């Protein structure tokens, strides 16, 4: 299936998490801390909240916990 990461289309296997699609797009900056430091996935199991991205306009989604859906639009560093 295809998802868009920061406007770039990537193809991922069905069942992949959004965090995988972001990584497949070559993006390592998922979000920034309150003081502007880069952040990305740490735990991969929904605990650390570091992998949050915007999915279809919704802020602060934990990308490691949300399966990709065909046509999804993902934005990082927002």
């Amino acid at each position, binding site marked *: 299936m295809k998802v868009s990461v920061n406007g770039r289309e990537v193809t991922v296997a069905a069942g992949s998490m959004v965090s995988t699609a972001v990584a497949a797009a070559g993006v390592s900056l998922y979000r920034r801390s*309150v003081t502007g430091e880069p952040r990305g996935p740490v735990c991969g199991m929904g605990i650390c909240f570091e992998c949050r991205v915007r999915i279809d306009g*919704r*802020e*602060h989604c934990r990308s490691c916990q949300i399966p990709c859906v065909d046509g999804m639009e993902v934005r990082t560093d927002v």
Partner: protein
Amino acid sequence: MGESFDVAIAGGGIVGAACAEECRAAGLKVVVVEPGPVGGGATAAGMGHIVVMDDSPAQIALTRCSRDLWLARRNSLPANVEYLPCGTLWVAADQEELAEVHRKKALYDGIGVRAEVLDARSLAEAEPHLRSGLAGALLVPDDSVVYPPCAARHMLRDIEVRREAAVQLSGQGIRLRDGTFLAAGITVNATGAWAPELTPGIEVRKRKGHLAITDRYPGFVTHVLVELGYLKSAHSTTADSVAFNAQPRRTGQVLLGSSRQFGSETAAIESHMLARMLRRVREYMPEISELTAIRTWTGFRAATPDKLPLIGPVPADPRLYLATGHEGLGITTSLATGRLVADLIVGRTPVIPAEPYLPGRQAEAHHEG
């Protein structure tokens, strides 16, 4: 024999900190007694709204003087105080509340507090996430927001703080739990809702509040939003009540309130009150449901029967001062409180007349009653 000070203050919240800062500025030797983190009680729990309130002439005088003091120092506050000059919007839901907006506007005009009436359309433009159909609002542009614990720490930057509990308080000084006695010319009880434990008999009660804060959604709200019905909630002294209150933070987070309860002494979240409070927020801002709350907590306001703080000497022990009872306005009124306490101690002309806040007023009211 222990050490001696000009002024010994029990309580390292923002009120104690403001008293300490002003006393030190007046040249007095000051010590603050605080066993917990500085600004860790009601100071940390509160919203940090710097606001002019008009419940009574004495409340107007105290909040307005305090807000002027905050405005005067806004450029010298450190960044972690997160000063945000966002203004307040008093939101009117219907025509009856809009009439109250106009009454408030006339009053503020009369005392030189800038205010502007917004019609329904201007309100919707100013805060697009408010529901449609609201009647309007009063914008008070010079109100603001701070992060109170860091403000308290800033005020105490040059003050000696003893990290020990006070167990006994009198006009002679403060006895600490470890037995140390801090002798003082003046002792100040600034322990908020816990003040009656050190000064039994004073009419201060705990009034519990719940709050929630969201993740970062910059721009979701841009003013402190308060429903005008808030006054009905704040004035009710019997029933538990909630009122819509939303506030932007410098971080982009949205702070949500408010609730009021007497008789609940547990710090635990009560889910029925939290749910009721958030339902009220949703009535005004339906899209709040799309946001993620990351933390909820409670705190205890120090409430007095006449809604005014207790500031100044206790009649039975004139070297013992009170600086408590600020209820939901302690962050705003901390600065004028500190100034008044220092004025009274050193014998300066008070920055505003002190009589409405003197502890003795309650005794008089009782004789009459």
